[in-house]
C-alpha cells in the first residue's frame, strides 16, 4: 500500500484555537449549545478571508471577464485568472491552462463524460468505476454508457471498505476506455491506492479520472506525481464558496476533447453556420463564469497553504485516530470502513438507533453530523443498511469537540434506551 501521509516526516505544529478565530460561524450557538460542526464531508465552513475576498470583489472590482476594456474589467479578469494560477500551483499542474472552472465536482465529471466520453467511448466499450462511488461519479457514466452503448464494470470493495485491487487487473481489456474512481471515499474515508491503479491503467494506455472531492481538501495533491488524466474537485469542501469547482486535465486530453457547452467566451470566430473554438481552458468555459466564486476559491487556497496541507493532513489524522479510539469503546458501535489509509470521514451506527433519530438528537446538543445514504445507495445496499451516520472532521475541529460528541452519543444511547 502506498503511503501518502507517512512519507512526509513533518512534525505537527498546529494552533487550532488560533485557526478557529478565522471562522465566524464557529461562534454560533445551536439549541443553546456551541456549534460542533462535524459535517465537513458535505461542505466546509468559510474563513473571514474567503468571505472578505468575495465581498471585496463585489465592492471594488465587479465586472465581466475577458471582454471589457476598462479598469474594473481588467481587475476582474486578473482576479479570475490569478485564481486559476493559484489552483494550478496548489495541485502542481504544469500549466494553468489545465485548470477549468466548473460548478463543482459533479459538473467536472459530467464535462468529461460528455466532452471526452462522447468522442472516445463507443458501442461495446467499457468504463470502469468502483462500487464505492458517490452518485456523481456513477450517474454521468451510466448516462454516457446508455447514450453510446457502452458498459460499466465495477471494482468491488471488501468488508473493511477498501478496493479489491486484485480484481482490477482482470477487469482491464481492449474495450476499456477509462477508469473513473474516487481518491477518498465519502462513506468509508478510505484513501484508494491511486498510483497503483494509474500505473496498471496506463500500462494499457487507459486514462484515469479521479474524483478528488474528498481528497483535495485534506491531502497534499500533486497531479504530476499521481499522474491522473483528470481530477475533479469542489471549492465548497475546502473552505471555498459553493458553485465553483475545478476540472484538471492533461493538456493533450483537453485539446482532443469536444467542447462541453456552447456560448460566449468559448469561441474563437463565429459565423452564422459554424464556429471555431477558443484555446484551452476557455474552450470549456461557456458563458459568464462564477467570477466571485473563483476569486473566493483562490482566497481559500491561500488560506489552506498558509497553514500547510501537510500540517492539515497530520492534524486530521490525529483527530480521526482519537475519534475512532473513543467511538469504538461503545460496545454497540458499528464503524463502516477500516482502511489502514484513511481520511476523516467516519460512518457509523450506534446500536439500533436510526441515523435520522441520531442526527436529530445530536442537533439538540449543537452537534451537526450527516445521516442518510450519503449519495451512495449502491454502498448502502451492499452493506445492507438503509442509512448510516457520518461524522467528518476538518482542521478547525478539536479533540474537545470529539469529547463533547462522545458525551452526546452516550446521552442518545440512554434516551433511545437499548
Amino acid at each position: 500500500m502506498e503511503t501518502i501521509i507517512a512519507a512526509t516526516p513533518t512534525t505537527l505544529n498546529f494552533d487550532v484555537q488560533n485557526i478557529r478565530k478565522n471562522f465566524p460561524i464557529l461562534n454560533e450557538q445551536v439549541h443553546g449549545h456551541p456549534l460542533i460542526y462535524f459535517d465537513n464531508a458535505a461542505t466546509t465552513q468559510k474563513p473571514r478571508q474567503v468571505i472578505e475576498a468575495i465581498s471585496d470583489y463585489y465592492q471594488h472590482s465587479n465586472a465581466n471577464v475577458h471582454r471589457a476594456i476598462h479598469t474594473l474589467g481588467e481587475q476582474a479578469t486578473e482576479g479570475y485568472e490569478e485564481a486559476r494560477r493559484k489552483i494550478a500551483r496548489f495541485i502542481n499542474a504544469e500549466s494553468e491552462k489545465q485548470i477549468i472552472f466548473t460548478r463543482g465536482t459533479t459538473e467536472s465529471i459530467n464535462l468529461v463524460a460528455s466532452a471526452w466520453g462522447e468522442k472516445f467511448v463507443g458501442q461495446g466499450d467499457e468504463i470502469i468505476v468502483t462500487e464505492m462511488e458517490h452518485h456523481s461519479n456513477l450517474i454521468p457514466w451510466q448516462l454516457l454508457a446508455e447514450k453510446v452503448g457502452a458498459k460499466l464494470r465495477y471494482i468491488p470493495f471488501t468488508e473493511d471498505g477498501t478496493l479489491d485491487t486484485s480484481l482490477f487487473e482482470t477487469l482491464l481489456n481492449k474495450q476499456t476506455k477509462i477508469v473513473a474512481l474516487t481518491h477518498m471515499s465519502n462513506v468509508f474515508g478510505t484513501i484508494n491506492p491511486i498510483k497503483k491503479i494509474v500505473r496498471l491503467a496506463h500500462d494499457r494506455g487507459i486514462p484515469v479520472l479521479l474524483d478528488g472531492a474528498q481528497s483535495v481538501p485534506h491531502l497534499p495533491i500533486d497531479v504530476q506525481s499521481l499522474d491522473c488524466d483528470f481530477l475533479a474537485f469542489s471549492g465548497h469542501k475546502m473552505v471555498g464558496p459553493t458553485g465553483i469547482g475545478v476540472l484538471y486535465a492533461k493538456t493533450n486530453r483537453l485539446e482532443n476533447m469536444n467542447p462541453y457547452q456552447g456560448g460566449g467566451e468559448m469561441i474563437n470566430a463565429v459565423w452564422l453556420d459554424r464556429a471555431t473554438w477558443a484555446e484551452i481552458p476557455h474552450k470549456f468555459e461557456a458563458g459568464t463564469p462564477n467570477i466571485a466564486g473563483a476569486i473566493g476559491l483562490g482566497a481559500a487556497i491561500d488560506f489552506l497553504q498558509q497553514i500547510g496541507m501537510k500540517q492539515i493532513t497530520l492534524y486530521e489524522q490525529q483527530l480521526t485516530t482519537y475519534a475512532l479510539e473513543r467511538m469504538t469503546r461503545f460496545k454497540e458501535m458499528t464503524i463502516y470502513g477500516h482502511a489502514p489509509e484513511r481520511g476523516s470521514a467516519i460512518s457509523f451506527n450506534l446500536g439500533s438507533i436510526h441515523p435520522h433519530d441520531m442526527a436529530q438528537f445530536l442537533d439538540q446538543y449543537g452537534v451537526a453530523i450527516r445521516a442518510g445514504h450519503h449519495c451512495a445507495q449502491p454502498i448502502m445496499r451492499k452493506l445492507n443498511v438503509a442509512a448510516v451516520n457520518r461524522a467528518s472532521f476538518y482542521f478547525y475541529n478539536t479533540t474537545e469537540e470529539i469529547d463533547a460528541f462522545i458525551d452526546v452519543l452516550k446521552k442518545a444511547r440512554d434516551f433511545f434506551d437499548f
Partner: protein
Amino acid sequence: MDSEFRELYQQIILDHNKSPRNYGHLDDATHVLDGQNPVCGDHYTIYLKVKDNIIEQARFEGSGCAISKASASIMTETIKGKTIEEADRYFEWFHKILTGSVDVNESLLKVGKLAAFAGVADFPVRVKCATLAWHTMHNALHNKKERVSTEEDEA
C-alpha cells in the same frame, strides 16, 4: 434539549420504537402493500386481514426511524377491530394532527394515542416519516396496488 424535541420523541413513541406491537408477517392477510421513503430508506410492509368490512388483523414489517416505526405500530393498534370507514377517519385525523390543524387536547377521546404525534408538526421534514405507514395502509385498504413512495406525494 428543548421542549419541541421532547414533544417529538414522547415516551410512547420511544416505547413503540423499542417494542413495536403487531410486528411481523401475517399469513392470511387479505391486503398486503409495501411503502417506502426513498430519501431516507424507510421501508415497511403492511398486512391487513379484512372480513365483512372489519379489519380483523393489522400487522407490519420493515425498518425505519423511531417516528416511522412507532407510527406503524400505533396505527396497527388503532385500526384493529375497526371498520374500513373508521380506519379512513383515523387516516384523516392523523393528517390533521400532523399539520397542526386539530387541537389534540380537545379531541383526545377521538384520536387517542395518535395525539402523541402532534409534536411532529414542528418538524416538517419528519412528517413523511410519520405518514408512511398510514398511506400504505390506506392504499392497501382501497386496493391500490402500486407500492407507496413518499416522493410521489409531491409530484
